[in-house]
Structure formats: C-alpha cells, structure tokens
C-alpha cells in the first residue's frame, strides 16, 4: 500500500457497542449489546476523498460520530493526527474544532431556526476569530457566493429557504471555519437529481480548489465514484473492503461489494436490496463471516472464521477469506481457486 501522505484519521480495530434495553414481558426487560461497529480499520490520508458506503444500519453514521469525537469507541483506538480523537477535542479552541467541519444530512436541523443565515455563517468566523468584526459581512457574502447563493439570502432565516438552499448554507457554514477536513453525512440525498448534481459539482470544486480532505457518506455508488478517490464499504458494522473507488467498483474483491455493484449500476440510484437472504441482526451475529448467510462464494471455513480487513492486492483491502482477485478489469468468478487471505495487517 502506498504510504504517501500522513493519515489524518486512523481507526484501529474500533468497536462501538450500544447497550439497548427492550421489554421481553410485562415486567421483564433485557439489556442487549448492539455492536454498531466491530473491528473497523481505516486510515484517511491528507487530501484524499473517501466515500463510506453501505446499507442502512451498517454503521456509517456511527463511524462518522466516532471520527468527530461525538462517541468514544468502546474498544480500539480512534486517532486524529496520531492523538486519540476525544483528547484532540478537549479545550474550547482546540485546533480539531476548526480543522474538522461537519455537514449533516438533516441540514435544516443543524441550523438554529432563530438565527439568520448571516448570523449562522458569522458564528464560526467570530468564534475562531478569523477576521475583524467589520470584515465579517464581506466574508459571509464571499462564502455565500462560493456556494452559489445570492447575497440577499444572508438576511433570510432557514425556514424561508428551500431544501437545496439550506444544504448550501450548511456547506457555507462548514467552510466558514476554513477546515481541512469536511465530513458529510449523506449531504446530497433526498434532493432532486439536478440539485444533487449541482451540489456534487460544488463539493468536487471545493475539494479541488481548497485542498479539502473529504469524508463522504453515501448510499449511492455513482456519487461515490464521481466524488471520491477512495471507497470504504461497510457491512453490519465492519469495513469489508477499501481501495481506490474505481478499482473497487470495477473489480470488487469482497463478494458483498460485488453484489452492491451489480445491484446499483446507475447513477443516482441508491443501494437497494443487493442480495437475497436475511441480514442478520447485529445483536446476535452468527459466528464466522458476517456475510456468510448471503454470500455466493461461501465455503465451510467461512462459518468458522471471522475474517478481519486485510490486504488482498496492493492498495486493496478486504475482509474475506476467499476474495475475488482476478485480473484487473473484471471480477474473477473462480469460486474455488481463490487464494486464502494473507493475514497482512494494514
């Protein structure tokens, strides 16, 4: 794996277990352990763009909350520039707050409805003391122009803006602190296709011109390949494949990525039921590979061994004992002759 560029984020076998209580009878309750993330290995290099894809409930948002330090991993380490994220966030003006900006899927919910757009965008500028008080209006106007909004939006309130406009305001606000990392949770989903296209163009442009590192959660493989150099595929709380986006999509190594690829061939078509078979509940995962129940390549050893994410090809990692590693260009379908996964660590 090429190691150029220091990692900004590093997740080392991160596990996040939620405890949930549910009623089992009129007076009985049981507490269950729900591993939302399990054995997640990921490194995000400077100036890269990473797409996180996976079905609903696979743990994408949880992973992002760990990256932002909103949740602490139950096990394993989550590092930001070599320091535990929760520690890097300590202190009111820690560089982390400025460096890492978040765009929420629910952009409207992430903006205080009682503040005007101008006040919303000025808040981070003021908080990080990025410029003198009297330059703030000009700076807000510049940010609005940067995200393609007219200047008179500054006086509006979020309730008076359309969905697409609110996303743009959220992007402008995220950019206001001049971050180096932009984390976006489904930043374009739920909008009509032309608005999605405009926003994607905007993000791609920002990424290029401002040298941003982008972590982009999406349901949509087309969006991932358009916007992101790298991709990480999540399945039931584990990253099952990582690598350069186009390589992974053209020649998936993990059977789950291959199934996703087949199920979502078109642009702007979110992942839908990629495979037959029951998705096991994360509360009681079967032993062995978590994908075994739906995997067309399953063999006996898959039920005994839970494969960690390991290297299958240069720059490519997959969590599979029998990965698809054919000639580049097309997925190999040699069911039996696949080499077993060398236990290479990242």
């Amino acid at each position, binding site marked *: 794996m090429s190691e150029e560029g220091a990692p900004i984020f590093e997740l080392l076998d991160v596990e996040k277990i939620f405890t949930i209580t549910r009623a089992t009878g009129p007076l009985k309750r049981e507490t269950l352990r729900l591993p939302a993330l399990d054995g997640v290995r990921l490194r995000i290099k400077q100036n890269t763009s990473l797409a996180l894809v996976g079905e609903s409930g696979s743990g994408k948002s949880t992973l992002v909350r760990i990256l932002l330090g909103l949740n602490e991993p139950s096990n394993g380490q989550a590092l930001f520039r070599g320091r535990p994220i929760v520690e890097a966030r300590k202190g009111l003006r*820690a560089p*982390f707050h400025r460096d890492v900006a978040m765009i929420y899927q629910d952009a*409207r*919910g*992430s903006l205080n409805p009682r503040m005007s757009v101008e006040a919303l965008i000025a*808040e981070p500028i003021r*908080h990080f003391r990025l410029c003198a008080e009297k330059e703030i209006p000009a700076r807000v106007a510049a940010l609005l122009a940067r995200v393609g909004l007219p200047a008179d939006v500054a006086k509006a309130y979020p*309730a*008076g803006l359309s969905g697409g406009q609110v996303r743009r305001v959220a992007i402008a606000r995220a950019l206001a602190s001049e971050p180096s990392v932009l984390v976006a949770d489904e930043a374009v989903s739920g909008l009509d296709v032309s608005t999605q296209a405009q926003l994607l163009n905007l993000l791609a442009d920002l990424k290029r011109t401002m040298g941003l590192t982008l972590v982009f959660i999406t349901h949509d493989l*087309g969006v991932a390949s358009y916007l992101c150099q790298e991709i990480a595929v999540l399945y039931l709380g584990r990253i099952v494949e990582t690598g350069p986006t186009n390589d992974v999509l053209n020649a998936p190594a993990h059977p789950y990525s291959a199934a996703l690829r087949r199920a979502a061939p078109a642009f702007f078509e979110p992942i839908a039921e990629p495979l037959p078979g029951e998705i096991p509940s994360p509360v009681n995962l079967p032993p062995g590979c978590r994908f075994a129940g739906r995997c067309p390549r399953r063999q006996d050893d898959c039920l005994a061994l839970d494969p960690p994410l390991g290297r299958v090809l240069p720059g490519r990692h997959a969590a599979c004992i029998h990965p698809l590693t054919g000639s580049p260009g097309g997925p190999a379908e040699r069911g039996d002759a696949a080499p077993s996964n060398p236990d290479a660590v990242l």
Partner: protein
Amino acid sequence: MTLLDGATPAPATVPPVRRRRRLTMFVRRPFFTLALLVAAGFVVSAAFAPVFAPWDPTYQDIGAMMAPPATAGHLLGTDSYGQDILSRILFGARYALGIGLGAVAIGALGGLVLGMAAGLAGGRTEWVLMRIVDSILALPSLILAVAFIAILGQGVDKVIYAVGVALIGPFARTVRADVMQVRAQLFVEAAGLMGLAWLTVVWRHILPNVVYPLAVQVTIRISEAILVSSSLSFLGIGVTPPTPDWGLMISEGRAFVSFAPWMAGMPGAALAILLIALSIVGDGIREEFDPKMQRGGS
C-alpha cells in the same frame, strides 16, 4: 458518469425568499383580528378609564341605587350602593389586565428559571425540581392561589404574587419540555462540534428557542390569570372592596341576581368577552408562530 463533468458550480436557481406571511395574517384570520380588536378595546378602556368613565368608580349616587341599565346618566345601571357600573367596569379592566399581566410575568419568569434549570441539569437535580413542579401542578391554580393568599393576605399586589406563583408550575413544565426537545436538536450538537462553551450554547442556541414558545404561552395564560384573580375576588379573598374589580362586582351582585341581574351580569359579560377575546388571540398567535404547528417545508 459523465453527467456531472462541468466542474464549476452552476448558480443555484433561487426562488424569492418567503416574506409575505405576516402581512396576510389579519386577512386570513378574521376571528383573530376581531378578537384582537376587542382585546385592544379593553386595553384602551383600561388605559383611559379616567377619561371615558362618566363617574368616579367609587362614587355612591344615593339618588340612583340599583338603577337599571339605560337610566339617565348610568348607561349600564348602578349597583346597590349607587355606584355607576360602566365606570366600575372600565376601571375594573385596569385591575383585570394589570393583575393578569403582572401574574403571568411572575409565572413566566419563575417557570423559565425553574424549567431551564430542570431541563439542563438532568439527573438528580432535574428529578428534584420536577417533583416540586409536579406537587405544585397537582393542585389547580385556583386552589394554589387561595393557599398563597392565605399566607400573604389580601390586596391587589398579594393577588398578583399569589396567582403568579400558582402559574409557575405550568410554565416550568412547558419550558422544561421545550428545553429537552431543543437540546436534542442537531444544531446544539453542531454548536458543540464548533467548540462553543456550554454556557454560550445555552444562551445563544437553547434559550431563544425556548423563549419564543414561552411568549406564545404567555398570551394564552393571561386569560387564566385573569380568571383566577377574578375567582379570588369572587370568593371574597382577593381584592378588597370597594375596589372596582369584576370578580368582586359579580360577587356583590349575586345576592340581587333575581331582581337586579345587571349588577352581576354586566361585569360578568365584560369578563367573559375579555377572556374569549384573549384566548382567540392566544390561539391565533400560537398557530401562527409556533414552529411545531407549521408545516416544515423542505
């Protein structure tokens, strides 16, 4: 994937910002407008009572005791002491509105402090505070006000305190519910991500989102405060005679209701009209400005 090859962002199509909502409110809600005019009428009568009132509200016209309405000089009649009912109603509006506003101000402020503290503290502190509020709420505000009057004694200022304190419970409860709801919102989490101090988050992001619904609550609760204070006077434990208080007037007229029904009827009608007008205004304001009752356009 060539669909998106143009790299510079196309300027957004920007529909004009919605701004005409407030202008049309009076047109769209005729009942609200009417009620607002009525309520405003009461406020004006209260403010200019000395100008409008034909008599001093406590002047006893010995020559015209229990005169029926439309008697010369006494448009709405007189009571058993010969006091002019119209003048007393006009001055009574001062007491009704003054006591209502004063009591609601106390209740809202106390409720804001208690509700914010409970909603933000969480854990044991919240539990203790909310049990206090619960015990206050377990009694109707009238009973509670009676209890406070028993402690404080009679008089206009005492009525304001008693009714105000009795209203703290309901206010605290709604404020706490709002705080709980607001602090779970994404923009509060986002403010934390920015590294804002918790007190700044509370002041800038939580408080404004709690104060606006509280202001709506205030308009609704004013009528409750007026009703409770009038009830106190009616029971004879609120304002002392000969203050021209509506509750007191109704109470005095009760004994004569079979042969001089206007004595209780006129102040009763004034009270009913004001209360109805205030609740219509309050409901209208709530429906118009409460974000929870608006369709969330996206």
